[in-house]
């Protein structure tokens, strides 16, 4: 992320570098956030354990790389079905029982899951910072005076491809339509003969598969440790609230906004204060536009 520091002298280069860095970062954030917003949009549950699944994804990449020298991009082929299965199981074992419970019960179920997973990782793999350093993480690409890390570019490309695939799935497949119908009106969907339990199972599994993939993708770029998910999930909350909880397109735009705030804020004020900017933005949006910047219809009632 220190790409902002390796700038060419010309001002235009700075703007171009910041712009491209924003897009690269935003693409990865989008993949983290899109699963969260999908789960919220359809199940009306904020998954407070979302970051822990990202952390598990990072560990999968770490162990695959350390034990078998497998590149994270190959691991992706295994991790996507693996995390789909983990999400499916988590829904059946943990979430199904509270899906119709009050918000408070749901909040504490996912908070409890987060605590348990985070510390299970701590017990199993200690709190040490681990790194995944495949060959591409040290390759720097220079184009038109801009510099990028190859891992970041590939992570961005795969993240965008996966996000677009999810969009296409939601828009054009029958199952996707069924899921959107459930999001719009749970009762009406049930009356139309939609098996909502199956929709929830699938939704949770897809959401977790997305964030698990994101964990594998960011593993060459960030340190791996039991609470590594926290920084991403806090970001993802900001992203989904900006975009309107439950709004997938909003999550994409929100990711770009948060990435821009982070990249530009770090460039001008130093990397230490970047979180202050997006948390301030977060609180401001929660206070003034709780339905999100792009005001998805009906979103303001979702919290009630």
């Amino acid at each position, binding site marked *: 992320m220190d790409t902002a520091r390796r700038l060419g002298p010309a001002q235009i280069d700075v703007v171009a570098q910041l712009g491209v860095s924003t897009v690269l970062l935003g693409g990865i954030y989008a993949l983290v956030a899109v699963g969260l917003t999908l789960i*919220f949009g359809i199940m009306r*549950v*904020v998954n*407070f354990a979302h970051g822990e699944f990202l952390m598990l994804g990072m560990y999968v990449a770490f162990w695959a790389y350390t034990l078998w020298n497998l590149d994270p991009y190959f691991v992706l082929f295994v991790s996507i079905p693996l995390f789909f299965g983990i999400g499916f199981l988590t829904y059946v074992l*943990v979430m199904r*029982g*509270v899906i119709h*419970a009050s*918000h*408070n*019960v*749901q*909040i*504490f*179920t996912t*908070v*409890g*899951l*987060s*605590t*348990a*997973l*985070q*510390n*299970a990782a*701590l*017990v199993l*793999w*200690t*709190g040490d910072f681990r790194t995944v350093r495949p060959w591409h993480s040290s390759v720097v690409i220079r184009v038109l005076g801009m510099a990028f890390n190859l891992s970041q570019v590939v992570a961005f490309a795969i993240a965008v491809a996966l996000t677009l695939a999810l969009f296409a799935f939601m828009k054009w497949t029958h199952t996707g339509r069924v899921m959107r119908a459930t999001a719009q009106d749970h009762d009406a969907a049930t009356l139309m003969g939609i098996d909502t339990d199956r929709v929830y199972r699938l939704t949770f599994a897809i959401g977790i598969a997305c964030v698990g993939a994101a964990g594998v993708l960011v593993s060459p770029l960030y340190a791996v440790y*039991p609470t590594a998910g*926290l920084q991403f999930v*806090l970001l993802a*909350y*900001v992203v989904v*609230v900006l975009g309107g*909880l439950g709004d997938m397109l909003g999550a994409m735009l929100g990711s770009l906004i948060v990435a821009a705030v982070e990249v530009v804020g770090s460039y001008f004020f130093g990397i*230490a*204060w970047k*979180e*202050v900017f997006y*948390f*301030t933005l*977060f*609180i401001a949006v*929660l*206070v003034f536009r*709780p339905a999100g910047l792009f005001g998805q219809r009906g979103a303001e009632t979702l*919290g*009630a």
Partner: protein
Amino acid sequence: MPALAPGRWAAVAFFGVAALVPVGVRDAYLLDSVILILLWGALSAAWNVAGGYAGQVSLGHAAFFGIGAYSAALMTTRFQQSPWLGLLLGVALSIAAGGVIGYLSNRLKGPYFALSTIAFSQVLLIVASRWRGFTAGSEGIPVPFRPGFWTLGLGHVAWVYMALGVAVLYYAVLVWLETSRFGYQLAGVREDEDAAEALGIASRRSKVYAVTLSAAMTSVVGTFWAQYVGFVDPFYVFSIDLSVRFALNTIIGGIGTGLGPFLGSLLITSLETYLRATFSGMKTGFAGIYLVIYGTALILVVRFVPEGLTGLATRLGARRSRAHA
């Protein structure tokens, strides 16, 4: 004998035993456990005012704890003043911040409110850990031990009674909430805001009051905790884990009850102390096993025993009295 409910008798027994422990025991390790149980209980009781009685579930109460801890630590180290002044400053700041958060709770429901409280505590964490010139940044602040009441440099026995005083006071606040007009208003707003409004209850105002009271109560214990433990680490005092802990104790003990937070604290703090001692010699991180147990317990309790230990006791008690009749 005065006609006290079984729950009140249990409270008398609980606090009575805590008061008697220092009479017979001089073991610092055991006294330390008692102090921590009482302080954690008081913190959970404070959380319970907002999360239980007013139904405003916060996951950022560590913010007020940290405000109390930092106010006292900075007051003693930077300005050479009494931590009691820091306590007052912390309460004042927490009332201001709690008022704002309480006002937010009128606009934000359920998960939105929880998210906004997390964001608030994270902003304070960043400020405390990065503003090196004033807060000493991520290194934290060692609080010097100066013996005396005014400097809050107390021995273990004195701390037991300090913590007991706060705990009993907070328990009294919860009992007051169970029996007073204000408490009934809060319960009405929590269960059905529209119906409460229709009955003429100023729902917005009562929620702001409850969150503010809860914030101030949390801040006071934050100050005591910092003075007792002697070190303020921003990544601990503002952590989400800490906020979750307040809620966890309360939920396991019984949310929205007077004794619940203290029973939860007794159970969880003892379990932590025991497991930490058992696994302390093992490889790093293994002590975290107790948090795996907590997380799992939290999931199971909200699902199967949402009324917590006190609710379970009431249920069993009711069954027994029916069997006797």
